[in-house]
């Protein structure tokens, strides 16, 4: 990886649209929107609602399925000199396993991120991420079916995120990413209807940053694998906060919508941050919070 900055799954599609705004080759890695075994249409609209310092979404993993991804998105992505991480989700253990098998031998994928934390689907998703037993099992199922580096994306909607992190490491994860969204809800006081068609949705953006930093820090105390820090990162200093807490890399979500150039600004920003402090190596800040 050229640098520790990548998009968070679901906020960058498969790169096409934002390639008009930034040079994808500059990214540390490119994490694509969650891919499932078969196409999913996603949830009924409205799917978005803006709240204080954040947004709720209930997209529902809309995507065209793994075959379409391999045929149509991957060839596009292979043009770029950037590690491609495919994010996958299934309704069952077997689906995660099968997705890993489908990816086997496919050229141009550098890693797999298991989404066991989507709050917007009815089966699977977050349920896998909220139980250490299931989280370990799903990781092991994927591990058994792939040789690629395996990242497991954790949900913040739990009491003890370290325990889940520990479990997925036992299951064979090479890294963990956190956090996915917090489950939230908002109600229209005019119509008395929820603002989202799916009633509840995932809260992202600056509002969740303190929760995310705390969880990264907790997990960094517990597991030895690299951590990708996610949640409300909007600026260089936000990213630095996650690195200090123990993240090896960061992923940027909602902020891409606000400013498509934000990842490039953060990549440059981290460099200047280090330079200003005469640091030559990002490891001089990773996990270096003085507690």
């Amino acid at each position, binding site marked *: 990886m050229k640098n520790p900055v990548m998009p968070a799954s679901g906020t960058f599609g498969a790169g096409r*649209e934002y390639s008009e705004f930034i040079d994808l080759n500059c990214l540390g890695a490119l994490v694509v929107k969650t891919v499932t075994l078969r196409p999913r249409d*996603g949830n*009924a609209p409205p799917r978005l609602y*803006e709240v204080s*310092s954040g947004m709720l979404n209930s997209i529902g993993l*809309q995507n065209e399925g793994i075959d379409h991804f391999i045929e149509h998105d991957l060839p596009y992505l292979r043009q770029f000199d950037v590690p491609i991480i495919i994010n996958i989700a299934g309704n069952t253990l077997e689906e995660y396993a099968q997705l890993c098998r489908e990816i086997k031998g496919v050229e141009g994928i550098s890693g797999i991120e298991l989404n066991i934390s989507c709050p917007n689907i009815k089966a699977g998703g977050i*349920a896998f991420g909220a139980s250490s037993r299931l989280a370990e099992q799903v990781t092991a199922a994927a591990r058994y079916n792939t040789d690629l580096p395996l990242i497991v994306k954790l949900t913040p909607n739990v009491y003890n995120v370290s325990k889940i992190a520990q479990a997925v490491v036992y299951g064979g994860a090479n890294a963990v990413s956190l956090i996915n969204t917090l489950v939230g809800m908002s109600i229209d006081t005019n119509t008395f209807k929820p603002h989202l068609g799916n009633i509840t949705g995932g809260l992202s953006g600056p509002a969740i940053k303190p929760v995310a930093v705390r969880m990264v820090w907790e997990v960094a105390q517990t597991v030895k694998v690299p951590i990708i820090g996610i949640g409300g990162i909007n600026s260089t200093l936000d990213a630095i906060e996650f690195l200090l807490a123990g993240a090896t890399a960061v992923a940027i979500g909602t902020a*891409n919508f*606000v400013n498509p150039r934000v990842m490039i600004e953060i990549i440059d920003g981290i460099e200047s941050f280090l330079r200003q402090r005469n640091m030559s190596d990002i490891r001089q800040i990773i996990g270096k919070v003085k507690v």
Partner: protein
Amino acid sequence: MFQVNADVIAKEEVIPGVFSLTIVSPVISENAKPGQFVHIACNQGGNFILRRPFSIHRIVPGKAFEILFRVVGRGTEALSRVKVYDILDVIGPLGNGFKYSERITSALLVAGGLGLAPLLYLAEELTNEQVKFYPMLGAQTKTKLLRYIDFKRIGKKTYVATDDGSSGHNGTVADLLNRTIHYIRPEIIYACGPEPMLRKVAQTADEFGVKCQVSLETKMACGVGVCLGCACVTRQGYKMVCKDGPVFDARDIIWDKEEIEPTLLGGYRCETAKVSDPG
């Protein structure tokens, strides 16, 4: 699509609560088409972070574009406080615009309220293409009837409806359309306005076998087709208003929630919701 830091060079409070801003951007104005929109960061440093979409209302060719907006919430409120010479972070032009060609014999442009914003730009382009068109403008009351002179100057005949009858037809613009379509007999209708109005316009067009394009509104996050948040329901499944629209063929839109196919209910496509959701 481009992201630019653009100067505001003119601002006007057209009527109380409705503002126009003219924003300098050669790339956006050169590449724009009627019906497209721009996505503007309105509220930097505020507690609301997402951009807000606005139709391109007029073009100063090769130089600048204009938006026309009503203050309805925090984003538009913040935007109304922008001053001339302020710089705005704008992404655009976005979406697919209205489809038209010089071969159209006659067009009807139906605007509900601020829905006229993209239609004036369309009217100017139709004029360039020498297409005959009729503007039909609806507003609550006469004083809220915007850009009437502009449409009148270039339109064939301008129809007006006001909810209180203070000007033109006494009633809604959808209502006026319904009463007049049989003698205007346009080849195509271009409509923009609130959803209930568009729905009625679409129905009327359908009844009279007239083609109809509508410009839809939804909440947007990215505005460029990435987040999949601005879905609307069409006969071809969910479409993104920002990328596949905002202009759609009216016949493709499913206006009634009850008509939504069971496959469009959150599970895998080609399965009923039941089967896909064992949990």
